[in-house]
């Protein structure tokens, strides 16, 4: 089975487009080095930092999540989110404990309300409900 696994990795590597410009070589999924393991990060998006405080009255920002590491999307001409999800599934079968499960199912977002000025200095309070994200990712 070890031989099979190595052959599988070689095949994986050969199917992965090498992004010479970035010179990145795919990490060895079995290495003990978890530095590039897929992780979900949390980021607070501040409207003030975006320089938008002159037109957004409230909230002052919102909490967002994003994933980084092995499950990043090297979205170039050959790899799109769906392909990546398939590759992740393959990797998932062999090393379930290494990466989180990829998922392309629609994800419902929390409802948010935003208060902001329009171009004519009218004020708009809008409720954004039933927002669904259809992207694939490390959910």
């Amino acid at each position: 089975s070890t031989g099979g696994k190595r052959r599988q990795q070689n095949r994986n590597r050969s199917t992965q487009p090498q992004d010479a410009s970035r010179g990145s070589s795919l990490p060895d999924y079995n290495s003990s080095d978890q530095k590039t393991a897929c992780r979900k990060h949390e980021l607070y998006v501040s409207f003030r930092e975006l320089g938008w405080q002159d037109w957004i009255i409230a909230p002052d920002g919102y909490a967002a999540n994003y994933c980084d590491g092995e499950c990043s999307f090297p979205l170039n001409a050959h790899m799109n989110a769906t392909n990546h999800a398939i590759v992740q599934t393959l990797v998932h079968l062999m090393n379930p404990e290494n990466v989180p499960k990829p998922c392309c199912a629609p994800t419902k977002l929390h409802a948010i309300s935003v208060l902001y000025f329009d171009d004519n200095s009218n004020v708009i309070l809008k409720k954004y409900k039933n927002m669904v994200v259809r992207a694939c990712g490390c959910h």
Partner: protein
Amino acid sequence: AGSSFSVDGNVEAHAGFMHRRLRTHEKREMQKEILSVLGLPHRPRPHLLSQGKYNSAPLFMLDLYNTISSEDKSQILDRYPSMRTTQSPPLATYQETAFLNDADMVMSFVNLAEYDREFSPQRRHHKEFKFNLSQIPEGEAVTAAEFRLYKECVSGAFRNETFLLKVYQVVKEHPNREADLFLLESRVLWAAEEGWLEFDITATSNLWVMSPVHNLGLQVSIETSSGQSIGCKEAGLVGRDGALEKQPFMVAFFKVSEVHIRSAR
């Protein structure tokens, strides 16, 4: 967790989320993403407002926003009672809160009228108000609309007066004589009264949304108990030259219209 650094290095507590400086391209991507979620073609550039001071409409809308947020929170608080804190009562009336629950969007509109019309003693003093409702997104229907005026306590000659305030919808304008008006509401006021006056203009607003050419604004006139026409300022009504937080404005509550267009059989 639970502590973060803002751009200027101060520690801000945003529950559990790190706050790091965004790179320029990240900023641009994030701005694009947020505008698409908000359904906006570009980032609005409102007229320069006096720094850090909001006038009456944004203050009122901020109160509605806090009402919504506290309601979301109260749903959470119901689930986690230990988080309950004392909250100051909202400015919006109970009725407005009911409109708010039902609405998908609320808009306040800046008064566009430039001047008060003061005619000769034979003709009536009145104040004009105009609002531009043409920017409303497709498919939004007005479920409720209010015109709000702030009245201050009157001292001086009229301090013991009662006033009759009338709000009209302007139906047709004429170059050399008074416009044709439709009376929306009349109300008796005491000189000593102080606070916000709300007038229901839902039907008028719906007409303005559906037929912008009919949007000729509102007129307010005031008489004393002896029938003398006086200026709004003398009766304590705050106009464009008054305090920012007491400026007149209108607010409309919208719901995405449920009307489904059926193709003919």
